[in-house]
């Protein structure tokens, strides 16, 4: 039984019942036609193997919507969408944009809940077809295309006894995930708290169309920006050079489900006990609705708390030992459901976890917090007014590693995210307003936000708080240096 099975069952049924009208009449075969001769699109299309689509094309709206992974489709329309086949295509596209005064954004998996890559002007470059995994087993490194999904990477690395701190959901590509920092698996032990610190180098196309290697040795300032610059990065990454780690022999874990009235105690254990566990033990709390309790019932009746712990270890015995300080807590006896002694691996982890990441209509927001008890108190006060049919807070212990010097410069002891999910477009506005209200209320206890999951559309003025003041300044200075003509869009809201 999947770990979070209960909470997504209902969503699954709802999603199945809703049918989305096609954006355009998809009559016969509109493909296989070249852009109008002499048009901008035709000039670029001539030079690349990928596909160029412009506003006004019959299939434009389908392409535009296809860029967003989820089902809520942000209402913004770039002038041109370019789905590339190669790094060479990216270079051509960037040069073309520069020559024609178009501002560029990049998308890979389109997972950004804010669809921050979608702007009303300019060119959107889709790099999702840039794939490939090459592993150097002896050196414990891998060169990976941006379009590779975290789950696939884990599976491929496992063949060579290696692992990488990928996202918790298997269908997230490494691309945007890593560039924004990456709240990945076992990062406390592997990569100073954030996955991006296991990136050794990137191959990146810069504003002038050059393809450069950026690492600690080469173009070090560009590398600094790529490690965390996220949607504010002034370049298109076409390859990641990753540091890998010895694969755990087992992901030894357990999941406990509690009634809502255990929330204070669960949070206290997160705050006071979990930080004492070894670094390779990852502990997460999620609050989600029980599927059999109707929407509208108060949280105490409807919400369940899921405490999930996993040790990335060499043996079952080691796993058991490392979980003991947590499992000895009196709290554990209060669990109303439990899965214990789970001998997992990445495949199982990703299969189990799949259900907990809604693929319907959703948005979310996230902050870093040092005091989870104070933050939970704010959430708890707001939860009764939540208008979204399903809304899930997640609290994850991050560790206390000092971050290496890079654009990725904000973290705290805990990561707190809150995801809203709805079924009917009419439910969207209220969900967004509620989320914004909660996160405004969280500000006094927050230490900034996480760029990849913050509500960039709702709180664009807070985007700078995803970075330390020095890093924010340096990022802007480097942008001026590497992209003096502003070929790339800035952060959402900036351009």
């Amino acid at each position, binding site marked *: 039984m999947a770990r979070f099975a209960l909470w997504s069952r209902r969503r699954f049924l709802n999603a199945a019942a809703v*049918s989305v009208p096609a954006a355009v009449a998809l009559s016969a075969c509109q493909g296989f036609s070249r852009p109008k001769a002499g048009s901008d699109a035709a000039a670029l299309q001539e030079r690349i193997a990928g596909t160029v689509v412009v506003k006004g094309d019959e299939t434009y709206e389908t392409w535009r919507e296809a860029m967003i992974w989820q089902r809520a489709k942000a209402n913004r329309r770039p002038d041109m969408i370019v789905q590339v086949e190669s790094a060479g295509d990216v270079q051509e596209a960037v040069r073309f944009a520069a020559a024609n005064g178009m501002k560029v954004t990049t998308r890979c998996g389109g997972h950004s809940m804010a669809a921050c890559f979608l702007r009303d002007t300019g060119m959107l470059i889709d790099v999702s077809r840039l794939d490939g995994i090459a592993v150097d087993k002896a050196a414990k490194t891998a060169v990976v295309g941006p379009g590779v999904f975290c789950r696939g990477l884990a599976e491929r690395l496992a063949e060579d006894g290696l692992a990488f701190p990928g996202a918790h959901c298997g269908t997230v590509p490494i691309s945007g995930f890593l560039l924004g920092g990456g709240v990945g698996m076992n990062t406390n032990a592997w990569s100073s708290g954030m996955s991006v610190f296991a990136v050794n180098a990137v191959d990146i196309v810069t504003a002038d169309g050059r393809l450069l290697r950026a690492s600690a040795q080469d173009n070090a300032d560009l590398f600094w920006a790529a490690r965390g610059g996220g949607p504010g990065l002034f370049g298109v990454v076409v390859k990641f050079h990753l540091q890998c780690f010895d694969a755990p022999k087992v992901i030894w874990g357990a999941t406990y489900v509690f009634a809502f009235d255990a929330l204070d105690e669960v949070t206290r254990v997160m705050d006071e006990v979990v930080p004492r566990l070894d670094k390779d033990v990852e502990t997460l709390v999620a609050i989600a609705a029980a599927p059999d309790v109707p929407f509208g019932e108060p949280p105490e009746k409807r919400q369940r708390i899921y405490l999930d712990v996993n040790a990335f270890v060499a043996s079952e015995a080691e796993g058991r030992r490392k979980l003991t300080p947590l499992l000895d807590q009196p709290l554990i006896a209060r669990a109303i459901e439990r899965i214990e002694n789970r001998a997992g691996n990445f495949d199982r982890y990703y299969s189990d976890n799949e259900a907990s990441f809604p693929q319907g209509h959703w948005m979310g927001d996230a902050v870093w917090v040092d005091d989870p008890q104070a933050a939970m108190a704010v959430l708890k006060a707001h939860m009764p007014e939540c208008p979204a049919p399903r809304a899930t807070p997640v609290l994850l212990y991050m560790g206390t590693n000092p971050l290496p010097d890079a654009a990725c410069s904000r973290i705290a002891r805990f990561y707190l995210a809150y995801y809203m999910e709805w079924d009917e477009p009419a439910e969207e506005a209220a969900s967004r307003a509620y989320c914004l209200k909660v996160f405004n209320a969280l500000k006094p206890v927050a230490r900034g936000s996480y760029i990849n999951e913050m509500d960039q559309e709702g709180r664009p003025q807070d985007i700078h708080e995803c970075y330390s003041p020095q890093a924010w300044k340096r990022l802007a200075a480097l942008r001026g240096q590497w992209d003096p003509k502003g070929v790339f869009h800035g952060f959402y809201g900036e351009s």
Partner: protein
Amino acid sequence: MTSKLPKAGIVAALVLLSGVGAQQALTAGKPADSATVVRELYAAFERGDMVALEQLIAPDATWTYYGPPDKLPFGGTRHGPKGVAEFFATVDETLENPVAVQRAFIVSGDMVAVPGTEESTVRKTGIRYKADLVHVFKVRDGKIVSFEEFIDSGKVLLAFQGDGSAGIGGARAASAPAAGGARRPVDRSAGKAAFTTCLGCHGNDGQGRAYMHAPDLTGLDAEYLARQLTNYRTGKRGKLDDAHGFQMVGRATAIPGPDGVKAVVSYITALPKPQAAPVANRPVPAAIRAIVPTCAACHGAAGEGNAALQAPALDRLDADYIARQLVNFRTGKRGYHADDVAGATMAASAQTIPDRKAIDALAAYYGK
């Protein structure tokens, strides 16, 4: 086995000198000398005659193309006639419009060295490269026991990686298209757009990604693909405990409506299809001899599928996927919904498979 291989791909791999043409037949009884065997091999390639070719490859032969196998799909060492056939299938999938030159046949005992050049267009990137090479053959008892291709695989790799500097004349073939039809037509269809949500798991060309446990979609019939997408969209497939199927629910639901399903299916069915598994040439293992006729009744004598009976091709799917689905059918994770009639039929049939061993044997027999 792969006798239907188009000639172009064959030529691309083992480049031909136009003068190699007329060959004397190999005399029965006395093994031919090494140069004759090699020339006959080239001739067989030129004719696209995989049967003749296969007879020239020793069962224990090694076939090596020097280049990183994880980056160049035809790189690495393959074994025996089957490995050689697979090599050419891979070449044909990835290269087009080959032009070849061979400069000499240098014989030394049982070794033959053939220096030359190869010029091909990489389908994926549109880049046309020209690389110097030497083929080295070793012949024993009239058969080739080893083949090594020493080629400027660095250049080939750059062409695969989209690096225009590897292109002929320093220019990307793609910027000067048309001539020779080296490029695929531009595809801006709604189907390709919708396929964006599929490619991370099923691959850019729909041929599946083992590391995502996602099957090859090419060569499956349109109705089957549409039916499965609709099943996922309407709760008839992709239960929560269907470990590698559940995520399809979200992806199928992300496709814009029934028209979107139609569009993406027509995109998928138009994708290039790699070779099907050579089921007809495989002996039926004893363990499944009694079951295979039942499978064949719907899926065809060689697992080629029968759309009229709503039975998909099995020879297009990889063995792991087939095994997983058989388990799903047997355990209520597929074919569980009353409205999924074809699935329910299969679920009932799957119950008659005796055990896991038989499942694996079936999967290996039908799958790739």
